């Protein structure tokens, strides 16, 4: 076994510096619930592990003056669940994050790690995409922002530049009458990799859908934002025809793999089913039901 170094920087600059300097031989450690499993399996063998959990900006949860949220990239799921306001504003997104793993895993797993791990089946990512979340990145060349849906590049890959670290997520303020929901399909009730995951975020005014975003997971090499589905919902009263059209749009967007977890036909079919159900829950929440 080759030697491995472990550092715990206190500032973002330190972390970025160390990360850039290691030139690909380093890995960022947030909760480690993906990274350590991969290291144990021998899939990755980093020479340097950079623990980012001691950096204040990466571990904070802040409600901004305009009613938006900033969430540090390394915030554990359990922390978000304890936040007095976050789950009231973003119940669907919180559910998606809290679906990750078990109680033990929740104590460590972060939405940042979930996104940067690059799994097309990552549970929080479709809900983030639906929420319109923007990722803040910082690297040797400075800071930039990127919509969450642009972060994944393929299974296990992201569009982060060498040396770039995900600092956190910015969630936009919510108009009145908004609601979100995330549903995933797994054979059991918990602890599994999504066969399909679907996040819906929408706003209703007088029963009419004025804004919507849809994220789909596990049906393509990356999590998808499905604009055609959102378009089918916007302007409708979420009647059967609109939901059918949105479901059809989700199915059309699917190009899943065929594996022992699900066939192409099944994943595609279920994507539409979940869209309708998630839209229903989001609408109920938007109505304050």
């Amino acid at each position: 076994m080759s030697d491995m170094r472990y550092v715990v920087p206190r500032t973002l600059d330190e972390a970025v510096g160390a990360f850039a300097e290691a030139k690909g031989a380093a890995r960022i450690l947030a909760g480690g619930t993906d990274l350590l499993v991969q290291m144990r399996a021998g899939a990755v063998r980093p020479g340097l592990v950079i623990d980012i959990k001691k950096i204040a900006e990466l571990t904070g949860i802040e409600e901004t003056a305009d009613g938006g949220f900033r969430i540090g990239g390394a915030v554990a799921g359990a922390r978000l669940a304890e936040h007095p306001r976050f789950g009231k504003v973003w119940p669907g997104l919180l559910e998606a994050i809290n679906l990750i793993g078990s109680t033990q895993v929740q104590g460590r797993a972060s939405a940042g790690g979930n996104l940067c791990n690059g799994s097309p089946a990552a549970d929080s990512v479709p809900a983030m995409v639906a929420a319109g979340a923007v990722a803040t990145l910082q690297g040797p060349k400075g800071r930039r922002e990127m919509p969450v849906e642009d972060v994944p590049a393929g299974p296990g890959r992201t569009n982060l530049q060498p040396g770039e670290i995900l600092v956190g997520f910015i969630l936009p303020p919510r108009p009145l009458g908004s609601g979100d929901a995330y549903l995933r399909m797994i054979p059991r009730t918990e602890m599994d990799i999504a066969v399909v995951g679907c996040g819906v975020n929408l706003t209703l005014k007088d029963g009419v859908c004025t804004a919507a975003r849809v994220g789909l997971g596990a049906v393509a090499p990356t999590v998808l934002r499905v604009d055609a589905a959102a378009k089918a919902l916007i302007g409708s009263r979420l009647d059967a025809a609109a939901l059918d059209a949105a479901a059809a749009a989700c199915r059309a967007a699917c190009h899943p793999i065929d594996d022992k977890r699900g066939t192409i036909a099944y994943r595609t079919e279920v994507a539409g089913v979940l869209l309708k159900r998630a839209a229903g829950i989001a609408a109920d929440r938007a109505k304050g039901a």
Partner: protein
Amino acid sequence: MNRGHNRAAVLEAHAEHLPLLRGLGRYVGDLTLPGMLHVAFVRSPHAHAKIRAIDVAAARGCPGVVDVLGGAGLAERLAPIRARLDPDGDYDYRETPWPAMAHERVRYVGEIVAAVIAADRYKAEDAAAAVAVDYEPLAAASDVAAALRDGAPEVHAPGGNVLFRVRKQSGDAGACFADAPLRLSARFKHPRVAGMSMEGCGVLARYDAVADELVFWSSTQIPHLLRDGLSRCLGMPAERIRVIAPEVGGAFGIKMQLFPEEVILAYAARQLGRPVKWIQDRSEHLIASFHARDVTVEAEIAADGEGRLLGLRAKAWCDVGAYSAFPLTCALEPHTIATALPGPYRWDCFDYEGYAVATNKYPGGAYRGVGFPIGPLVTETLIDRVARKLDCDPIEIRRRNLLRPDDMPFSSASGAVYDSGDYPALLQAAVDRADYATWREEQKQAAQAGRRLGIGVACFVEASGMNRRVYRGRGMMEIPAFESALIRVSPGGDIFAAVSTPSQGQGQRTTFRRLLSERLGVAPDAIAIGLGDTAVAPYGAGTFGSRSVVSGGGALLAAAGKLCDRLCVLAAARWAVPVASVAFADGGVQEIGQGGRRLSLAELAGLAYSARTDLPDGVEPGLEVRVAHDPKAAPFSAAAHLVLVEVDPRTGQVAIRRYVVAEDCGPIVNPAAVDGQVRGGIAQGIGCALYEDIVYDAEGQHLSATLQDYLVPGAGEVPEIDIVHQVTPSPFTEGGHKGVGESGTIGAPAAIVSAVMDALRADPPRIILPLSPQRVHDVMEGRADERA
């Protein structure tokens, strides 16, 4: 909720489990010895390959490495694992000697090709990665279809891949089926599954040079058989091997086979003269522990227009992997399915053919239920189909056909003898407890709201405590099939009992203590129990096949009887009266008649040991008895399961809403243990029905090596289970007991399939487990599973 006992009673019943829950148990993993070394195995990445060369030089040079075993040299010093069947039996069988370490050819992914022994496991694993093996990959037979195809790769050339074939017939199936008003058929596939005990396997082996004895701690169900198996492979006298099963964290049948790892550890300990240890990790457990089931069945049922069952015929192909395991052989599954298929019914005709087919996969072995879950899966599903065809209620059709108490003892269509039981009353008990009519009403109302509920039923029997006659009938000559017990009373009257059926967490200590305390009329905690050590417990087959209470407990009761007889002789001699005028009662011997004298157990023990006592002729000093016990017949317990499921009409996901069991295992010694067995068994049955699947791809690669890939039911998947007991003592066993260890696992898959098909009102040509959401969805869409 209906648990039927309070907290204090539960605590008492689980007294021996509390220390285990608090981490005070000593499992193999907890044991350490000075100078202990650790073993890591190098395993084949190929399903089938020739080994051109193994180079261990680099590994030998790694830090901390003490030795590396591998290559041809070892093969000459270790006899292969052999599993024989009686050559005179009514079947065809081909033996497949299994080298503990492969040196010419590997036949499954995970087969051991080298073992590294080092100062710790990390060093051993690192060095194992440095062992270079040059393989020449060969085409693999990855499943039954591939193994039976013309020109299929031969797992053991020459001679084809069918290792075992058996046929069981009764009545004239040809005529019966030709004339039958109703004939329905289906094809079934039960997945390959893993027992998934909480504790994996593990061994600590130490060679004691002074005593010339190998002390061998192993997480095993079969201390004596393991000893005998090691003795054969090592060429070392069995009486120089002491096997100790310390606490064992679940076994479920997996640990009743001899593992190649065990042979290698035994060899290494003796060779190196230092203790060696190996603790199986979870991936090893999934890849390289005995798998089970993996059965395809084609079956047809014949019935008349009133739903009376007439005939059953079936062919079963069991994918048994690359080798026969010791002691059961690959005949295990095909043989047992024959016993299981007829269930609690009478058949005018029965025709069964069973095959064990070799493939390039890990060998098959025993897993809770062995073959028995396949019986109701096939039979109950077909009975449901008859009912649906005739528009008859599934409960009603069973009522018409279940055997009745006055049929007992009954000789089944495949030749088993059902000793006793009231099967219709069992079904009624389940129906009453569930309030079946309200379930149907609920189903109707849900349907109006677009929801799909389904009600499933399964009636079945379970062979338990199988005796010498049963194993003789199957030709399984490696199984001694009897159990033994020893009772020793100290000079002060303290009682020690040792039984040959050890515990893997089922609570045998409590159960045996209760049995003996009731028989002798002494307090349970006055009795010490010894289990799981060949130097302590007398000879026996071990714990499996629901035999602990029937065979082990039977031996204990028989030994208690012998002890009481001895005490009576002692007392009669003391009083100078005939033995007929004294009797054992309530922990002592009583002179019969008014004002009769009495001697307590302690007083009698004092007499038995004391040099002052003039013992009668033929009575040996001291107070120890031992009995080897073979029950007169293997008792059959029985049960009826009723389950209510909900199927998501759009995704095919199945959720279990209610579960009711009515069971009859004869008199119950420890209700908590019986309920625990039923519940745990059902959890595993739920796994087989809905989630678990060891998948190999077409090249024989193992795709289920982690718990992320192999889904076992969790707390969220196991419903509250409501259990009703009925007691029909067996006329053939000491105490009338029948086994119950496998009952839940046997009934659950059939009951769940019945419920799902009821929800879907579907009778697809193929029933393929596990019923994953996708498979259920396919059934709803009328699509056949492309991967059947």
